[in-house]
């Protein structure tokens, strides 16, 4: 539900503005309204936050320490940053080496069997013969460089050279061993420098060795790299951890200061006074007033403003049951409700799992979903995204079991074939299609009509007469069509026919008239849209049938062939079906809410209430305690400490 908000105007002495903002941060009940300027974090403070933020990934999670003054923090960072930059650059270099070496080893190793004798000669032995060798690793995925290099070398050296190439993996780097006259070495080096050869050179550390010795040295180096990276990580930790507690404490205080600086810029300031405008939950207005009076005494005056008329950029505060939080997030995924909207969280929490159950409807699948939900909720915090997914899965699983009993399905047709009775009807049966379609349409009719009724109520509250008439007309048309369809197919009494036709005619006229000058065009389009919305609920039947028949396929395939193979195939198919069942029905149920249901009454476009100190982290400055809101955090820029040298 939406919590009503009140706007307060707070006037006080300018020197006490920071005190007032600190009190509001601690209270976490007031959002500052921009009167003058949206405000931004002062550059000095933003720079300090950015530099400190860059150290936080290295500082671990939980640590306690004292808050540093700005000067002490700058000194600490000036001392830390060069050391950290050097270590990070060294780590980056090692990481790059660890990635590059296996490619070089593979490429050069593949050359060895081709030239076993040459591979054993080192540079000195080759020099005695008046020869030189070059080992290259070339990136040549398009196979254009090697032929080009071969042609250029032939032009330059004639027949006085030997080039052997080999690729360990198709498309991978090409190992290339070039043996040439020692006198030609400068010309070849010049050629390699001027041509467009993407060379992954063999590192200088392996120069002068034979091919075989190079590969062996590279392997030894590769084996040592993890140890070296661990040593660098240990040094990094030893550098940062001693001040990690202070950094944690200080960054919280810095963020709180930044938030207060932004809020102060939003206030109306004179040389001696300030005026702050705040949104606060109406029920907590007195609490805010009392907190300000306690902190500032006579130096502040608070006035409640009249916000009965629409106020620009009013935030919305939603307060729902803890169990509905995941569904609130699903509503926000589309758009947060605006002022005057209904909060559809409760209805979504109630109906979305039912739709899921209608579609999947299988006792065993439901049980597995429940087990999965229990596992997710026992391994992740309840408020985390994964924990909330577990909550939605649990509700969906419960309804899936219920509808599984109604349909008589357990692992699809398996339950039916072993005698599990269907309390309502079995979806895989030859006569199931008609009741399933009617059931889906009935659900659609009820859901769309509920949406239209909410739309009428919302429009009436906002005095939008045309919208009231349009939605009422649509309701009448749906009622008329339902009556006619019932009279034609379901054996409704003949007396229904006249009121149904009357409702249909009146509904069409009202819907057209409510659209104004273009009513004859827009009215019928709206009515067709509403009818399409109801028909769209047939997806409940379609997705459900697809799930049932995939389970049937799994069972039939499992029944063929040997027992173990059959079990394996059936398990694989049921696992696939369950994975699809966990994903597709959720999307479909969500879509039915977003498009067919919300479309009847929900405007959206709202902005969530974001009070000072909202994130809940607090830090203690040498003389005060402050809150830490997330929405004023500045995005950290990459700092030199993280760049490779």
């Amino acid at each position, binding site marked *: 539900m939406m919590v009503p908000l009140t706007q307060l105007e707070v006037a006080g002495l300018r020197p006490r503005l920071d005190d007032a903002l600190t009190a509001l941060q601690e209270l976490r009940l007031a959002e500052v309204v921009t009167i003058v300027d949206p405000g931004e974090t002062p550059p000095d403070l933003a720079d300090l936050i950015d530099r400190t933020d860059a150290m936080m990934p290295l500082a671990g999670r939980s640590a306690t320490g004292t808050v540093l003054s700005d000067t002490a923090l700058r000194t600490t960072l000036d001392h830390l940053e060069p050391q950290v930059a050097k270590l990070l650059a060294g780590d980056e270099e090692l990481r790059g080496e660890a990635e590059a070496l296996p490619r070089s080893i593979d490429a050069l190793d593949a050359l060895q069997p081709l030239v076993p004798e040459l591979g054993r000669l080192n540079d000195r032995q080759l020099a005695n013969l008046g020869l030189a060798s070059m080992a290259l690793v070339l990136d040549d995925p398009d196979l254009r460089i090697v032929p080009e290099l071969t042609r250029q070398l032939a032009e330059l050296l004639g027949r006085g050279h030997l080039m052997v190439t080999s690729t360990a993996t198709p498309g991978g780097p090409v190992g290339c061993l070039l043996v040439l006259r020692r006198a030609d070495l400068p010309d070849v080096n010049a050629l390699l420098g001027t041509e467009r050869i993407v060379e992954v050179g063999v590192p200088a550390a392996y120069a002068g060795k034979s091919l075989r010795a190079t590969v062996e040295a590279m392997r030894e180096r590769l084996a040592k790299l993890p140890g070296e990276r661990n040593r660098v990580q240990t040094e990094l930790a030893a550098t940062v951890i001693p001040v990690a507690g202070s950094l944690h404490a200080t960054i919280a205080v810095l963020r709180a200061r930044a938030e207060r600086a932004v809020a102060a810029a939003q206030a109306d300031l004179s040389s001696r006074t300030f005026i702050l405008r705040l949104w606060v939950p109406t029920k907590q207005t007195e609490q805010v007033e009392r907190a300000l009076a306690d902190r500032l005494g006579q130096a502040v005056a608070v006035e409640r403003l009249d916000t009965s008329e629409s106020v620009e950029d009013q935030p919305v505060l939603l307060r729902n049951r803890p169990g509905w939080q995941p569904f609130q997030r699903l509503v*926000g*995924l589309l*758009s947060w409700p605006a002022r005057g909207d209904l909060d559809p969280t409760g209805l979504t929490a109630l109906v979305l799992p039912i739709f899921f159950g209608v579609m999947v409807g299988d006792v065993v699948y439901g049980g597995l979903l429940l087990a999965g939900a229990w596992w997710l909720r026992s391994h992740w915090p309840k408020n985390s995204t994964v924990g909330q997914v577990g909550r939605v899965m649990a509700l969906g699983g419960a309804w899936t079991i219920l509808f599984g009993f109604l349909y008589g399905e357990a692992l699809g047709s398996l339950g039916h074939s072993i005698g599990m009775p269907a309390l309502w009807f079995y979806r895989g049966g030859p006569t199931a299609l008609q009741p399933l*379609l009617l059931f889906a349409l009935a659900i659609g009719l009820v859901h769309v009509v509920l949406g239209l009724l909410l739309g009428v109520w919302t429009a009436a509250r906002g005095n939008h007469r045309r919208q009231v008439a349009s939605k009422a007309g649509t309701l009448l048309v749906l009622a008329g069509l339902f009556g006619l369809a019932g009279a034609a197919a379901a054996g409704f009494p003949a007396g229904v026919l006249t009121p149904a036709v009357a409702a249909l005619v009146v509904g069409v006229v009202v819907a057209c008239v409510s659209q104004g000058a273009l009513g004859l065009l827009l009215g019928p389009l709206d009515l067709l849209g509403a009818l399409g919305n109801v*028909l769209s609920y*047939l997806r409940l*039947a379609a997705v459900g049938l697809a799930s049932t028949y995939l389970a049937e396929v799994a069972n039939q395939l499992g029944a063929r062939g040997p027992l173990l193979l059959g079990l394996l195939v059936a398990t694989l198919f049921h696992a696939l079906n369950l994975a699809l069942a966990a994903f597709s029905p959720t999307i479909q149920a*969500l879509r039915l809410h*977003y498009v067919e249901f919300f479309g009847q009454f929900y405007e959206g476009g709202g902005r969530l209430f974001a009070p000072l100190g909202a994130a809940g982290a607090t830090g203690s400055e040498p003389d005060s305690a402050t809150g830490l809101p997330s929405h004023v955090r500045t995005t950290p820029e990459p700092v030199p400490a993280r760049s490779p040298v």
Partner: protein
Amino acid sequence: MELGLIALAAGLAVGLSALATGYAQARIGAAAMGAVAEKPELTGRAILLVAIPETLVILGFAVSAMIILLLGGK
């Protein structure tokens, strides 16, 4: 023979509308993902837009069901 034609017609009703839905979703999905990459807060609207053409295949399913129920039962 007649039963086979009925089954073929029902399959075509769903299959062709599924192709149309897939074509529309591919175009909308590509554009929507581009928009989400720029503005992640549009994720909900992207899902909504991608899901809209599914009505085509649902209507195809309805037609297919009508073919089976009205003609297949005879």
